[in-house]
């Protein structure tokens, strides 16, 4: 279980996160929803060791996660960043090889590559193409596959459905549930609050750096404030 306690992050004078606490139990799907600039990406970047924290603690099973980002990946906590961030100049296959950077066993890397090619056959077809030549949706598949290459225990997904066609959004959410059912713990950040809440075991609502609501996915979805602000439903 990952536990965030009293976390604050400042960017210069801007308070991006103000004393938030949340926990991500093993094997669950936890969602964070909130408007633009609420601090969602900042939260997961803190968990991934990508931003300096101002105060608070982040631990996994009692061990501090305030360590360099590469060591967090080695522990099995892997982020799929906002905006895909695939490497555009190297090939699809090379992107995937880097995804498995922490794995030393070559056979294992091969096996994982076959697994993601089964999941997304289009990537196999495109494996020798530079990542930058893929379509937006294909880049999202590559970004997710790249993360899966390292056998993560915990997958941290930052807006995986952003910019995808409705059909594919459904597929991505289905895939997230599938990944969860085979044992991956999921931390999901989404603007698509409705979907994110519907698959979440537990959810948090962030507003300008503070948690304003939390609970089981369904409960949060039924909260009148959340309904109005994030789901566009008036009571």
């Amino acid at each position, binding site marked *: 279980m990952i536990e965030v306690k009293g976390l604050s992050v400042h960017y210069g004078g801007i308070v991006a996160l103000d004393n938030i606490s949340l926990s991500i139990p093993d094997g669950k799907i936890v969602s964070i929803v909130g408007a633009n600039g609420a601090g969602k990406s900042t939260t997961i970047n803190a968990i*991934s*060791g*990508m931003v300096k924290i101002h105060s608070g603690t982040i631990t996994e099973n009692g061990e501090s996660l305030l360590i*360099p*980002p*590469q060591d967090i*990946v*080695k522990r099995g906590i*892997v*982020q799929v*960043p906002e*905006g*895909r*961030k*695939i*490497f*555009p*100049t*190297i090939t699809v296959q*090379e*992107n995937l*090889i*880097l*995804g498995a*950077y*922490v794995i030393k066993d070559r056979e294992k890397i091969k096996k994982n590559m076959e697994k993601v090619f089964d999941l997304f056959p289009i990537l196999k077809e495109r494996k020798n193409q*530079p*990542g*930058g*030549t*893929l*379509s*937006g949706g294909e*880049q999202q598949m590559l970004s997710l596959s*790249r*993360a899966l290459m*390292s056998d993560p225990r915990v997958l941290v997904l930052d807006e995986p459905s*952003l*910019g995808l066609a409705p059909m594919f959004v459904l597929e991505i959410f289905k895939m997230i549930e599938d990944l969860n059912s085979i044992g991956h713990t999921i931390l999901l950040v989404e603007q698509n609050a409705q979907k994110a809440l519907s698959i979440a075991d537990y959810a948090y609502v962030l507003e300008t750096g503070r948690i304003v609501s939390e609970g089981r996915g369904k409960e949060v979805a039924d909260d009148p404030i959340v309904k109005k602000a994030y789901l566009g439903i008036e009571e």
Partner: protein
Amino acid sequence: MKINLILQQLLNGISLGGVYALMAVGFGLIFNVLKFSNFSHGGVVAICAYFGYFISQHVYPNFIVTLILTAIVGGFIGVIIEKLIFRPIRLKGAPLTLFLVNSITAAMLVQQFFAVMWGDNYYPYPEFIKETAIHIGEFTVSKIYLLMLSISAFVLLILSYILRKTKIGIAIRAASSDIRTPSLMGINIDFVISTAFFFAGILGGVTGYLLGMAFTVDPFIGSMILKGIIAAIIGGMGSLGGGVVAGLLLGVAESLLIAEIGASLTPIVIYASIILLLLIRPEGISGKGYIVKA
């Protein structure tokens, strides 16, 4: 020009161009990852030219052994320079201009050091090759130049293999487009940058050795890397392959022009053509870009 002379100049040009290519790639490796023009590469070249002279002349006069040793020393000098003058400002998030200033200062420091210490003398490498030319019919080939060409080609081929086939090589190429995201794959970016400097330093070491062997060693030998930087720019910043091609072309153009119009006019023609070329094609020979779709 007689056909023989042309062929000979062509070969000389390719050999010299091979060394320009080494310099272009050594320079380009760092430019790709950190996006600044690393003039301190000239410092590595100069230190290694002296080092190669010293061990081959005074310690162990064996060509292969001293070349390899010099290359390795070059690699470590690259790593040390990065740790001392680039890493601290990178971790502070300094602007690129500061990297540039540091790199130029380092190059000048090395130059002045050698000028003060050993500036009033020329230092020739031992004559590893007794007979300096091979004759094939009417055709004469300088052995030193052949050696330069084969060593440059060998070193560049190995580097190309590493960059394409090993994880760290792929990571260096990935970091060229995005230096933040590799951390999310468990890649230690400090190590990636160190390794890039190590490889660039090895190229600098080989460059210094070959230049020292082909000419003589003087404090300003490091400024030869200007040719390499020009090759990198013509090749298209970001494309190491482009830098290699441009280095070879530059060497050939230079040699042919020297034979045709003389050594004093050649640089004028070359520099004017480069400016013209970049006016027509500012992205260089092989400039290309990919878009990351949001």
